[in-house]
């Protein structure tokens, strides 16, 4: 039934947004994770991409997480001579996480999640009203 498929598709949509939220939480939690000795790499920001995919168990096109990748952008330098990972000039490589970008992304994920939840509730209401037609 199409309405049942709509339920599964919305649930899948909420699922991928949850993965996105998890990645954002990882990025924010690790925004100060640096190396422990000179020359070691700090944490690199993770990114999520989504793709459209046919789900055989649902029998319709849904959405899935395509890849959790790494942002290979440049790592900023911070002057901190007392840091264990500081090089001979006193600079430390810090993660390329920008908390403003992450928080904006978080808002967007939240908005997409609620949109999916809204559709799920509407579809459920339609199914239960259809069942009520039997009375």
């Amino acid at each position, binding site marked *: *039934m*199409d*309405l049942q*498929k*709509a*339920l599964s*598709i*919305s649930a*899948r*949509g909420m699922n*991928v*947004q949850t993965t*996105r939220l998890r990645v954002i939480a990882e990025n924010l939690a690790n925004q100060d994770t640096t190396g422990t000795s000179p020359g070691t790499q700090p944490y690199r920001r993770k990114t999520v*991409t*989504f*793709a*459209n995919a046919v789900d055989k168990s649902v029998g*319709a*096109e*849904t*959405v899935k997480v395509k890849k959790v990748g790494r942002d290979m952008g440049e790592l900023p330098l911070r002057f901190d001579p007392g840091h264990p990972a500081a090089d001979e000039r006193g600079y430390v490589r810090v993660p390329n996480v920008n908390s403003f970008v992450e928080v904006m992304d978080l808002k*967007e994920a939240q*908005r*997409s999640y609620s*949109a*999916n939840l*809204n*559709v*799920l509730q*509407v*579809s459920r*209401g*339609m199914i239960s*009203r*259809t069942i*009520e*037609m039997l009375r």
Partner: protein
Amino acid sequence: MDPSRIPLFDLADRRLSWIGQRQQLLSQNIANADTPGWRTHDLKPFAEHLARGTGMAPARTDPGHIAPTRPPAGAGKAQTGERAPDGNSVSLDVELAKVADTESAHSLVTGIYQKYLAMFRTASGR
């Protein structure tokens, strides 16, 4: 008596299946609101869908009859909204408005269906 031969039941049946399919497409659009390259899908309006399949259009039996009104201009055309730089054309508010539309159409159909059944009950005295 075969209930599916009563025109209203047949019409309600087709309307409900149209609504179910549309709801599926809209939920796909919303689930893919962040998928690069995804373009929105929608069904053609039900009136157009109906005009193709059956002779439901009103017949003009007298020259004095007014011709059937055409569907409003632009109906059925894909919305040419803006697209994000990643090629995604989903706008959450537009899609949610369509979902609300579909929901109210669904409660209209189920309501009429139940009223119609109640008339049968009245007629059969139960």
